[in-house]
């Protein structure tokens, strides 16, 4: 324990080349422990155990670092049957320079680490000459090789086994469960309470665009994207279509909605009908405002481009997910002089929408806009849950940076206890 307490004060991320030197220093500073051992060459305090958190068939051996850990000295790891007693007859499964293979070389979390980071560690797996079977005991020894002398550690017996949980991934599991819980809590909260959502500026532009179309007496074109209704972006596009359709009905402006997917078309038809009903103009609703073109990317694009050129809509809406066709659509739209409003979560296409459209709902703004309009608790709650998730990430980033900086300045070890919680460890 005392060793660890001392080491805690050391800096944790010194460059690798400093390590051998550091270890020697550390050990020299701990005379009570090391001096008694230096006379013997053999590795000290060897521990062998089943490799934790794995699928079996492997053992881990750890031993204390020694002052003689120099590149010209080598370590050998030997494995034999449990009943054997002479390590010289064992199979050599690993041999490496004495200043390599430390616990710290393997990424592990503090909550699963069994010995100090400065210890040596080797993992034994089935290799040529020896096969490690689960639930069979094996004897393991470590030898120090200097020139042609070999000094063996005492034998240790251990049994490999398969594990049922990988404790290194505990933080991953905790994050998954707590975030999942958070989302459901936020949804149930949203069902009972009013949750504030900020107004999305793009939605004001929607009204303006419809107004312009009415003034000019030209139609409005609305696209719902490339994905089908399973995708949240398409659902959001359908919700926003409801709002656009209602406005169009109020102003008695023609609405054109070409589709790429029959099911989305059917649903959007219903939404449009409902919107005209709500606007009090059911007689103006036209069944063929929503129509299906084709599911093929470029045929669809060419057809929509054709509509833009022939009918010259005054406002084009591109909501949902898009691929390479985005630019073909918005460029043609721009050439007809229409006001263009886009909303997409396709980050690879955002640069094109942002440059060619008058207003773009960027990424999650699309979902937010639809939650804002639909007022559906599931959507609002999810958005709220994600907001809290982002707030947590932001705080972790802030606190983590401060803590890590303190760790560098003071050389303390405790910051790692916090930082490990948010690292990907396996």
């Amino acid at each position, binding site marked *: 324990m005392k060793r660890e307490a001392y080491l805690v004060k050391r800096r944790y991320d010194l460059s690798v080349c400093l390590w051998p030197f550091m270890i020697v220093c550390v050990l020299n500073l701990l005379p009570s422990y090391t001096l008694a051992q230096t006379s013997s060459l053999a590795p000290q305090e060897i521990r062998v155990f089943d490799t934790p958190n794995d699928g079996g068939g492997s053992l881990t051996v750890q031993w204390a670092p020694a002052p003689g850990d120099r590149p010209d000295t080598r370590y050998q790891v030997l494995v034999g049957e449990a009943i054997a007693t002479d390590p010289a007859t064992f199979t050599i499964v690993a041999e490496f320079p004495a200043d390599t293979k430390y616990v710290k070389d393997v990424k592990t979390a503090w909550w699963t680490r069994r010995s100090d980071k400065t210890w040596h560690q080797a993992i034994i797996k089935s290799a040529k000459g020896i096969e490690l079977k689960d639930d069979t005991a094996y004897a393991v020894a470590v030898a120090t090789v200097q020139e042609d002398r070999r000094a063996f550690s005492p034998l240790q017996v251990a049994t490999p086994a398969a594990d049922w949980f990988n404790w290194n991934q505990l933080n991953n599991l905790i994050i998954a469960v707590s975030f999942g819980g958070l989302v459901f809590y936020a949804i149930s909260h949203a069902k009972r309470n009013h949750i504030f959502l900020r107004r999305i500026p793009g939605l004001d532009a929607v009204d303006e665009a419809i107004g312009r179309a009415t003034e000019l007496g030209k139609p409005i074109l609305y696209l719902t994207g490339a994905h089908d209704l399973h995708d949240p972006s398409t659902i959001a596009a359908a919700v926003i279509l409801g709002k656009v359709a209602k406005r169009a009905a109020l102003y008695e402006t023609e609405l054109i909605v070409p589709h790429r997917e029959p099911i989305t078309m059917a649903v959007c038809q219903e939404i449009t009908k409902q919107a005209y009903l709500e606007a009090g103009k059911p007689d103006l609703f036209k069944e063929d405002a929503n129509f299906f073109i084709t599911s*093929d990317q470029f045929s669809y694009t060419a057809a929509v481009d054709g509509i833009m050129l022939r009918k010259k809509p005054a406002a084009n809406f591109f909501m949902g997910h898009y691929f390479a066709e985005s630019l073909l659509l918005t460029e043609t739209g721009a050439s007809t002089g229409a006001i263009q409003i886009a909303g997409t979560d396709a980050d690879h296409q955002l640069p*094109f929408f942002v440059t060619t459209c008058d207003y773009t709902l960027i990424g999650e703004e699309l979902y937010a806009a639809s939650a804002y309009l639909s007022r559906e608790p599931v959507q609002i709650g999810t958005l709220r849950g994600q907001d809290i998730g982002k707030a947590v990430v932001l705080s972790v980033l802030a606190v983590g940076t401060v803590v890590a*900086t303190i760790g560098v300045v003071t050389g303390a070890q405790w910051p790692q206890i916090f930082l490990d919680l948010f690292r990907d460890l396996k």
Partner: protein
Amino acid sequence: MTMPFELIVGAWVATGLTLLIFTFLYKDNPLFKLAEHLYVGVSVGYIIVKTYDTVIVHLVVKPIIDNGEVALLVPVAIGMLMLTRYVPKAAWMSRYAFAFIVGMGAGLAIPRTISSFILKQIEDTVRPLLSLAGPDGVTFSMNLLNPASNLNALIILFGVGSVLFYFFFSIEHSGAGKAVARTGVIFLMISFGAGFGYTVMARMSLLIGRLTDLIEFSDASYGRPTIWLSVLIIGTLIVLGRRTKPTPPEV
């Protein structure tokens, strides 16, 4: 050296189809539509053949016949259930298949997304803002060109933070929040600009690739299809344009 006959025909066909698609640049026209439908047909045919060969022959039939892996009939049954979508009365049975795929996809995604896109990204963003230069010297490295320098770490922290903040929807962007959100927008715009610049490169390379082929096929050994077919297609376009005169003018 003479060209094999099928290569020469191939060169003519490939050149012709390439040029037909390029006519779209002039305007949407029947020649383009022809090439386009042919494209869809050929690729659908290709996918059907490949799926049949890979899935039915190599992943299902062979293992069952050679190794007796009868359990593989279960996914085949599930796959068949999907096809019930076309039978209105039995369409609900396809739900089992979708339930299995979607459920499994969602399950597989959760832990992996956390590990790859949340933990890993946090881990790399949380960097000490000071570094150890010498044995005891604590410094702040300002080198912009070294992606790992402290200054860049700080900029990244600001960028990630402000953009994340911009995507907060349940609080108003006012006061200090407004300034942070605006910084986020600036960062977003820089990234979109970079994306646009990089994509210009990508799209141009596609064109370069097609033109390289056209140049190759203008060689005499193929019978110069590029040149002859260009003339032919431009001629056709003019004829078509005459015939359908009363269309609205293009912008």
